[in-house]
């Protein structure tokens, strides 16, 4: 049961990582990337590392996303 949960999360994680790379719309890619961080946060928590999970949620899903958004706001939204 526990393994099935981990496996599902890992599959979703891989899928979101690939989607983030393949998306040409950078805004979309950033949103997918923050999903990736949230999934990774769940994995950390489930593997018994709440300290890392908290950091992942705050930095990975929160701060990094915002910094990416600011960077997109100052450049272009489409990948060339």
């Amino acid at each position, binding site marked *: 049961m526990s393994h099935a949960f981990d496996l599902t999360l890992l599959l979703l994680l891989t899928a979101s990582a690939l989607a983030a790379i393949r998306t040409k719309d950078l805004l979309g890619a950033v949103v997918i990337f923050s999903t990736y961080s949230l999934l990774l946060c769940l994995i950390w928590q489930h593997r018994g590392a*709440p*300290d890392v999970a*908290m*950091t992942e949620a*705050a*930095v990975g899903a*929160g*701060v990094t996303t*915002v*910094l990416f958004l*600011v*960077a997109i*706001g*100052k450049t272009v939204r489409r990948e060339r």
Partner: protein
Amino acid sequence: MKRALTAALLVLLALPLLYAVAQLPPHGSASSPPYTHVSPRYLERGPVEAGAENVVTDVILNYRGFDTNGEVTVIFTALAAVLAVLLGVRKDAGPVAGEPRAMSPVSPVVSFVVRLLAPFVALFAIYVILNGHVSPGGGFQGGAIIGALVIVTTVIVGRSQAEALVPARARRLLQAAAPLTFVCIGIAGLLMFGDYLAFPRVADLAWLRTAWLIAIEMGIGVGGAAIIATIFWTMGDE
């Protein structure tokens, strides 16, 4: 010729590295030294020896305090690099590089929710920092939460108002809070117990040990939050 030389050098570098890797115990092997000596020692004696019930905090701040000291210095250096790059670019572009971009108005729903939740988020962040030696969390986590809170607050009230909350003179000091606290505690350990970053080990001084742990957590939290906020504010500049 140059390419052949480069390849030869790379091979020469790779061989000893690969040899060293081949000598490592197999990944996950239960008989490798970290699992036979290091981890059990941390888990069994961490709370007694290092002073924090949260073993992660024991390892980060006490057993491997040197690593963390270097780590916060790296983060501070990263801020310095970011500021050097961003501020340098702005100077080159000149003051009339472009019209200031009009901020799109914030939705009242977002504004209301942020205003409603902000005090609780702040309280949670302080709890995470101050309670980091007992429960999961600590300076890095709490600092990141405060940094995120500063970012959403800036989005709601605007940069000038948010920045006014931090006195201009204290800013540099706050950004350097983490390495400064670490070095202060390190030197205190040097003076009192003869080693840089030495923590009190006798039971009588357990209160001092806890106080130092909390002081470092607070330094890391404040410094981390200030660094995140500064990077965000500087990026949003122009």
